[in-house]
């Protein structure tokens, strides 16, 4: 590598400058956010405004309901990661699958052996590690049980959001402990389907990421 001393020279220049270090800034009061019980409704409204589709499922038989809601939409297959904690319930529900339901396809092994399948798949399913009603985001925490590309490459992304993981604000969600350092290798905030307005500021969906974001809140 060239310039082994570049680091020292840059830091020395910065240290040579006169500096007064101000105290840590105070946190500005946030606009009043919905309290926790109403957070799910606020999240639903915010996500819907961003063109996500939001459904609520009863905790008891969510997997069967999910299968029914995903049926007849023309989704040819749904990719999931078998190691996910909720995977057995999905497998069980799909075992009695109706014909119109998307075919359940397991992502086994690493991306190197699964790339072609992934890039031709219709939908992927993951869970959200948390969600924030303000500003209306889902926090995805990819890991061994949840590949990061599963929420990105297929044209439809199905997300499960347990209601108790919905926080009033992003600040609350980040402070809720599970995101304390060290952070996971990847943490993604998602607020809706992929979009762009790069041509005449005309909004268009699904430019590189999913065209459809299907959110299922488990109550």
């Amino acid at each position, binding site marked *: 590598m060239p310039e082994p001393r570049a680091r020292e020279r840059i830091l020395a220049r*910065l240290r040579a400058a006169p500096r007064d270090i101000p105290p840590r*800034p105070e*946190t500005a009061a946030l606009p009043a956010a919905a309290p926790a019980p109403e957070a799910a409704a606020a999240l639903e409204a915010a996500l819907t405004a961003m063109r996500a589709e939001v459904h609520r499922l009863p905790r008891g038989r969510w997997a069967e309901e999910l299968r029914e809601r995903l049926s007849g939409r023309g989704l040819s297959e749904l990719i999931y990661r078998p190691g996910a904690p909720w995977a057995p319930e999905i497998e069980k529900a799909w075992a009695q699958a109706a014909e119109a339901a998307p075919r359940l396809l397991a992502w086994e092994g690493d991306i190197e052996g699964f790339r072609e399948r992934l890039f031709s798949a219709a939908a992927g399913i993951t869970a959200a590690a948390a969600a924030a009603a303000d500003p209306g985001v889902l926090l995805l925490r990819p890991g*061994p049980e949840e590949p990061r590309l599963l929420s990105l490459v297929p044209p439809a992304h199905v997300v499960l959001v347990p209601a108790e993981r919905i926080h009033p604000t992003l600040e609350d969600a980040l402070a809720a402990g599970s995101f304390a350092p060290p952070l996971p290798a*990847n943490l993604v905030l998602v607020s809706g389907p992929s979009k762009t307005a790069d041509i005449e500021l005309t909004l268009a969906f699904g430019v590189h990421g999913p065209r459809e974001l299907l959110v299922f809140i488990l109550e």
Partner: protein
Amino acid sequence: MADSGFEARIEQALEDEALRRNFASALGAFAARRRSVFADADALERLRTQAAAIRDRALARLPELLEELESRLTANGIRVHWAETAAVGNRLVLEILEAHGVRRVVKGKSMVSEEMHLNAFLARHGIETVETDLGEFIIQLAGETPSHIIVPAVHKNRAQIAKLFREKIPGAPYTEEVTELNAIARHTLREQFREAGAGLSGVNFAVAETGTLCLVENEGNGRMCTGVPPLHIAVMGIEKVIERLEDLPPLLRLLTGSATGQRVTTYVNLISGPRRGGEPDGPREVHLVLLDNGRSAVFADPERRATLRCIRCGCCLNHCPVYARIGGHAYGTTYPGPIGKVLTPQLLGIDRAGELPFASTLCGACEEVCPVKIPLAQLLRRLRAEAVRGPAAEGKSRAAPGAAPLERLAWRAWGQAVKRPGVYRALLAGGRWLGGLLPPVGPLERWLRAHAEPRFSQRNLRRLLRKKGIPDA
């Protein structure tokens, strides 16, 4: 100052009606969206104060935070490289790519890479760079540079883009439907994402506390570039570091609200390492190139240092009456608009870009909307003074060396005239009679190219006062 062609480019831009229409409609829409997302003026003011304080504190601790960032990133498995100049930064990126035998890279939007002219450098060394942000993809096809920090192809309308796609993308039909144009881009780039040997990206914020790179986007191309290929290289200016994770939410709110009037972007991608044990995807290696390229010199001066608070939202561009009329290319620099006029002369030197601060009405709109309260108007005035008098002579006498001889002569004559009531009155009378007959030559000719001819009033203030019975003071 050598002629850089700035004036010629301004005139060319002003005569391009399509260009002016494209900018006027886009910028008006941005300003309206920003107003609607920040409807509560008091809340916005509190947020701006907080964000400016966050950035100020981070800059005040910059050397310490860069060290902390480096050690956290390294612990997270991200390799950190330091570059004093763009040339060294380019070389570092090339060496990493060559070590992996990569011939083609996919790239997310990055203004720092534009500043480095990274694509052209890699092309000269046989590496193809594919821009994947839709706006960047469009201008790469056209062989142009971004005309806006956030919406790089804002100068083009859909008909121009339709024609471009038809000509440059094999098999693409001619269509002015935005949805179809997007579909063509999606289809064209999918294969590139799948096959590329590496992904390049910029960085919006780097969190020192956690060793995290934060990338903000709407399309998903950034996540593709940083998630699909086995190698990810990020480039960032050394000023982008922030202290803690909790500093991120307010900055995100201001960035997206100021940039595009969004409450939040579709994706905020927080990268704290390469693929970890047991993970089925993600890059095997992540590198970060920290670029100085003149920033430490800006940092040396506490007043100029405020420039480095910038979070590159482009809001000052959207509200600038000059930018709205001449567009981004006329500036001839990587960073256009108010922030460009302030940053570029500091990065390149006042001798090379000293004319930029003069392309301003000093209306202060930029400063009023800046989410981190950069004193842009004040910095413009200071850089103007430096351009005329040289950097050392700040605040010195009026007729300093370096001022145009004609200007010095005019000020001296004026100074003499106002000291002598008789001469002064005669001048006023002369102005009344002869003001309309001034020959349009020299500076007046230049002035008249863009302004209405000044008309001298036939009744001066002293006469009006006398009429009202108020005696001379």
